[in-house]
């Protein structure tokens, strides 16, 4: 089966090690050392900014002035910046908006729209299947443009409305086609036996398909949640600037950064550390959830992008 072959191939370091053991070929060790050093450099460059932001958020005012921002980790870490930013009631509101988006969005769009749509497209005899495929495919190639999208949301009353984050993106071309491909990979004997046992189409989806393709479903929900958590541009476009009840966290962070730039007394107010603290709050949920979904990434992206 395909899966076992892929799993076997996943350990692709093994084959080079085998070749290496067989014969220490000329240049192999040099090659490994050079590329490892290169990778190490890349890792440091990648990780340094993150550690810097984390460290900066724990800096105290005095240390910032004394050391002039030249550091990786603070000498005397303090949570003063966090205590300061959590005095702002608008931060709580933005966190609530972002959490609501990240929960409601993926559940409605992935579970109730994309998955069922993908399942419908994977059915053999569904009338109108081809039309539906073309229907979603066209939206992947053509976009509407900023202005008409704004006007349509205006006409349908979604401006300054929480549902503007959810409803327009209910059905996604890429993810429903990915679900279709996933469901088509189900062995047909399993589906036949479920049908012979009298399962309805919905039962097949929930009882057979969902458990079998749990990895794909989980990764799609994770990606949807991350997408919702990270988006700010839609709020910038469709939510009033002073409507603090609907500003998501990332837009709050953007405004926060801009605010502090204009202030001339930024260093005195410990503004740098506070900005970094808001950024850390924006990163934290993703970093915490990331390890649990890591193993699914290769598979999920691979299925969506490569055509055999």
């Amino acid at each position, binding site marked *: 089966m395909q899966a076992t072959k892929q799993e076997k191939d996943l350990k692709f370091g093994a084959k080079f090690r085998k070749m290496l053991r067989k014969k220490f070929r000329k240049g192999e060790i040099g090659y490994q050392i050079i590329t490892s050093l290169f990778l190490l450099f*890349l890792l440091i460059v990648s990780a340094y*900014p993150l550690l810097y932001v984390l460290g900066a958020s724990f800096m105290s005012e005095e240390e910032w002035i004394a050391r002039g921002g030249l550091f990786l980790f603070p000498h005397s870490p303090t949570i003063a910046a966090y205590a300061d930013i959590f005095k702002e009631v608008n931060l709580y509101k933005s966190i609530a908006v972002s959490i609501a988006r990240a929960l409601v969005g993926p559940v409605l769009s992935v579970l109730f729209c994309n998955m069922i749509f993908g399942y419908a497209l994977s059915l053999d005899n569904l009338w109108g299947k081809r039309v539906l495929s073309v229907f979603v495919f066209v939206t992947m190639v053509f976009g*509407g443009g*900023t202005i008409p999208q704004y*006007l349509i949301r205006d006409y349908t009353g979604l401006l300054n409305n929480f549902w503007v984050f959810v409803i327009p993106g209910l059905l996604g071309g890429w993810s429903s086609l990915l679900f279709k491909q996933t469901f088509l990979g189900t062995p047909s004997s399993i589906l036949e036996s479920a049908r012979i046992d009298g399962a309805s189409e919905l039962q097949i989806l929930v009882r057979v398909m969902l458990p079998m393709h749990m990895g794909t479903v989980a990764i799609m929900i994770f990606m949807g949640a991350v997408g919702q958590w990270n988006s700010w*541009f839609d709020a910038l*476009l469709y939510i009033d600037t002073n409507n603090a009840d609907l500003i998501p966290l990332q837009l709050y962070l953007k405004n926060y950064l801009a605010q502090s730039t204009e202030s001339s007394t930024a260093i005195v107010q410990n503004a740098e550390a506070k900005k970094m603290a808001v950024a850390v709050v924006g990163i934290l949920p993703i970093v915490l959830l990331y390890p649990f979904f890591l193993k699914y990434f290769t598979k999920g992206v691979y299925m969506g992008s490569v055509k055999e």
Partner: protein
Amino acid sequence: MDQNVQNSAQDVPADQPAEAVVKKHILERRPKTPLEKFKWSVKNYWFIYLCILPGIISMAVYAYGPMFLQIWLSFIDYNFAGGLWHSEFVGFGMFRYIFTEMPDFLTILRNTLWFNVLDTVLGFFPPIILAVVLFHLNSDFFRKFSQTVLYLPHFFSWVIVYSIAYALLSETGAITSILKEVFGYEAEFLTNPNAIVPILYIFSTWKTIGWGSIIYLAAMQNIDTALYEAAEMDGCGPWRRIFVVTLPGIRGVLLYQMIFIIGGIFTGGNTEEILLFYSDATRSRIETINTWLYNYGLGYFEYSPAAALSLVQSVLGMILVLFANRWMKNKYGVSIW
């Protein structure tokens, strides 16, 4: 197989030969005409149709609605008094305005194309290089660790990326301070028009390099190991094997990605990122078509020119994708659909 099979299996007379049973009870009962198929489908799948309806409506309104509205907007001269239906119909006037009179047009076109050239060079090669390095690495632990660290920035929003850039490069940022205190050099980054485009690309590469390499790594896993053994037999060293086995082995994916890059020439540059780094000082270098649509189209209510420009952009993009796809298909047999 479907419901028909299951029903007909029960009333099969035992004494008839199998072929006749199949013919009578399965083949003849299968819906044939479109109307029959429609009725059969509605009877069996009505619930499925009901479930996908909300998604279809949302897509029709919020994806197809803007497409048609854009075409209509670009043929009228929209004003708030007239609205959609009573504004003056100007035919191709808006397109003529864009190409001949619009003051910024050449600047934003140049910036967009320039961004895309950088996108091809700086955005296309780093993930491939990273994938090659990771693939030929002996240590599984080191590979897994690197992948974990390098994929992470993909999941951060552009605001986070900007806040990191701000932390490092603003007046009080780490790199600016180091340059000032160690080398005595007063550097200016985020408001420097000459530095802003490289900065944008360094940070977008930082965000996308790891994630972009996944697709190439996945393709490399399908390369036949025997090819490496054969190459080794013929005296191929570790550097050479990259060019004679690994890269040719993922040729299909490389060409596939090229089609998307060619198709994006007029989209060029990540709108969200550019808008975050945007400032009046750097405007002349980083104003692209997409940011113009936001800053002027929406900001100054130039709805009709923006719609027309956006329409030109997407039609050109579409033509380029079709052209690139056809060219790749004829020449290399690679197609995106």
